[in-house]
């Protein structure tokens, strides 16, 4: 009945070093791009940064939710979630370019008269919220909240590996559930500060939930991919059963539907009311090349995966599910680009090459940090009292 003993994770040397190498090369290339066209490079960088930060925070929120619901089946996935959720410090460092470039990204920093009188008035009204020191202070606050929660969830779990006391499970559950409002609100205001503010005056109260739904889809897809990638190794993927994939696939399916639901609600409400200060954001995304991107999202991010994931058999087949998950990771990038890049070039769809280098750069650094951090740790929380329950999970 005991779980098959996996040794501590000692490999990964090559993986983290090559990821770090790729990451540095990507970041340097983006830096070179910035010398050529600093505005393009900044938008491209923001895209890459938000994509990977979204995966990290989606994972962290998922982990906290699992703790809050006392769930047993995901215990075997938890170390991976914990390590991914604890990569927040990398993003604090990687936030520096965003902070430095904020004047070129966010119109409120130095409002130009071209925005028109109305927009200038609105921005003047928002001044108590929108000042550079407050923006930076809030950013530090967000990172502190996410970083501390991620750090302690990982640390307590690791301590349980050796001490084995159920006390640590209780503490993780308390922190996981208690921190949800804090990290959730930080996430919501982050989407306002770093994404919504790309447009001078546009606002939507459901925007934070939209970004959250997409990030969770990405996080779930990431876990599936990581599980399948480590199937034949001494890592957690070896322990995953069709029951786990079935549940992960169901969650992925649910969040894809949730994403579509939020996206539809936001679009329909703005479309039908047709208020001039709201519709501009969608007008940009419905015309020119961005219209095609919108259609790609509807079909690729919802219709296709929805139809495919209806199948029970597919959700239990690791490789097939990993295919869907990879597809969702790609479409999540399209979604993130769709949020960020129209602010750079509203009239035509344009993907600056620095977006690709920044994506590789930020991703390489984040992956390298996660792999480096997890060395010497057990690949699953071996001290958790419910690990055996998780390993015995049967197909529903």
């Amino acid at each position, binding site marked *: *009945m005991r779980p098959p003993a996996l040794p501590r994770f000692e490999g990964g040397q090559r993986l983290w070093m090559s990821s770090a190498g790729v990451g540095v090369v990507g970041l340097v290339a983006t830096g070179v791009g910035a010398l050529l066209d600093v505005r393009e490079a900044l938008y491209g960088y923001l895209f890459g940064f938000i994509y990977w930060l979204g995966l990290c925070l989606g994972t962290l929120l998922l982990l906290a939710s699992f703790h809050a619901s006392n769930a047993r*089946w995901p215990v075997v996935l938890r170390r991976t979630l914990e390590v991914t959720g604890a990569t927040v410090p990398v993003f604090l460092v990687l936030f520096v370019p965003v902070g430095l470039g904020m004047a070129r990204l966010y119109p409120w920093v130095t409002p130009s008269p071209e925005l028109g009188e109305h927009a200038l*008035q609105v921005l003047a009204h928002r001044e108590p919220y929108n000042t550079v020191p407050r923006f930076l202070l809030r950013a530090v606050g967000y990172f502190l909240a996410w970083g501390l929660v991620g750090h302690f969830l990982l640390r307590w779990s690791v301590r349980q590996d050796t001490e084995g006391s*159920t006390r640590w499970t209780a503490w993780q559950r308390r922190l996981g559930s*208690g921190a949800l409002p804090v990290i959730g609100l930080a996430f919501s205001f982050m989407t306002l500060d770093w994404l919504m503010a790309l447009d001078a005056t546009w606002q939507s*109260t459901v925007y934070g939930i939209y970004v959250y739904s997409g990030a969770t889809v990405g996080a779930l897809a990431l876990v599936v991919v990581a599980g399948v990638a480590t199937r034949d190794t001494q890592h957690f993927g070896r322990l995953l059963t069709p029951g786990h994939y079935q549940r992960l696939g169901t969650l992925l399916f649910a969040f894809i539907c949730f994403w579509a639901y939020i996206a539809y*609600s936001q679009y329909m409400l703005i479309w039908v009311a047709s208020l001039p200060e709201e519709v501009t954001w969608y007008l940009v995304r419905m015309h020119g090349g961005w219209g095609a991107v919108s259609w790609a999202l509807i079909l690729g991010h919802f219709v296709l995966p929805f139809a495919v994931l209806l199948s029970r058999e597919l959700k239990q087949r690791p490789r097939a599910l990993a295919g869907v998950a990879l597809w969702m990771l790609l479409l999540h990038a399209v979604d993130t680009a769709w949020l960020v890049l129209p602010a750079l070039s509203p009239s035509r769809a344009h993907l600056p090459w620095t977006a690709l280098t920044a994506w590789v750069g930020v991703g390489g650094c984040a992956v390298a940090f996660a792999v480096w951090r997890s060395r010497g740790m057990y690949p699953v929380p071996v001290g958790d009292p419910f690990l055996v329950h998780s390993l*015995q999970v049967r197909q529903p």
Partner: protein
Amino acid sequence: MSQVDPQVPAPGDALVTHPLLTGRHSDAEYSESLLAYVHAPPTRAWWMLLGVGLTGTALLAVAVGVTLWVGVGAWGNNIPVAWAYGITNFVWWIGIGHAGTLISAILLLFQERWRSSINRFAEAMTLFAVTCAGLFPLLHLGRPWKFYWLIPYPSTLRAWPQFRSPLTWDIAAVGTYLTVSLLFWYLGLIPDLATARDTARTHRARFWYGLASLGWRGSARHWRQWRTGYLLLAGLATPLVVSVHTLVSFDFAVAQLPGWHTTVFPPYFVGGAVFSGFALVLTLLIPARKALGLEQVVTLAHLDNMARVLLVTGWVVAYGYIQEHFFAWFSGNPYEQHVTWAQHVGPYAPLFWLQIFCNVLVPQLFWVARLRTNTAVLWGASLLVNVGMWTERFLIVVSPLSMDFLPSAWAAYRPTWVDWSLLVGTMCFFGTAFLLFLKFVPAVSMSEVKELRREVDESERFREELGGAP
């Protein structure tokens, strides 16, 4: 069966303080105890409550009669407050119904076993609540006997309904919701009606339960299809329940009125619906489990879980408030700001602060584990949440209407006795229907409890094996 399923918390598991079933009983004992109330003659308390309920239902009949005779003018609404109690009650009632579907369908899909003892009960609530809810828009039509004008039929008027209006969406949503809830409830009920038939003490009971159970004989072939069908209906009911309250929120959010037009309304309404629905389940379940002696199947674990749901959905609602208030200020739009500000200090301010107290502060009690299983606290809190959620809907419906763009058109709203009677009357009708349900239908699903019993046993055995082989 022979496989272990350790996902079900069993007594003695690490960190499990409240088991899902207490005591050990055989299948026959479960059938007997869960049907005792159905087969026994009604008690005096039941008759008295039924009397109260029927009196209130009579009041409802009077109020409906007056509304039909006089017209909607019998209500307090008038321009500019064209929607008031009617729509508030509609939103409130339909929200209450959502907990039933959530418990039955979503928890079934997530294989949360704590649903098994309370789903029947909550689904019945859904049916009655949706019936009450449907009454209000129907009466609000003004000429309810022309309701079929909302349905596309080839009429001699040569006109069609206008499908870009959320009012036509509501017909589809509420009609579908009522039908699907009924089918789901009845399908789940058939095996238990058969048990009632087979344990009936009188010939008459046997006859009627026999008819109602349609000839269920527990055949394995039937169970196989039944289970698939039940799961499929659950899979359909889950997006349905979300869509229903979303469409209700669209009634407001598609408008351009400050305080109504905001994109967070759909998820925030759904969260609020689940919040108030769970509160009402608790309000009714806590006394019912005592009166019907259901403590061994509806245990502290169930109460604990429901309190947690209250906490979570309370936070969803709170998030909605935060978004609404922050963005009202952030927008720089003077109308938006005024509507929000007037709620804090204007004529409706006491209601606003009551809403914040009931919906945001009260649920925070449930961070404390001890309070989650304290029935008195739980019951009181659930009542307050019901009040708070009704208040919230009232404020959403009425306050933006009474203070829109043109100050000279502002007017306050006052309910009439007909408005109050409709609200109280639907509550009494709901109570009456609920009493009849408790008397005639097994309130806890017996087949599911028997299945759960085995799963808890397996889980216990699993734990013992673990303990035996360290």
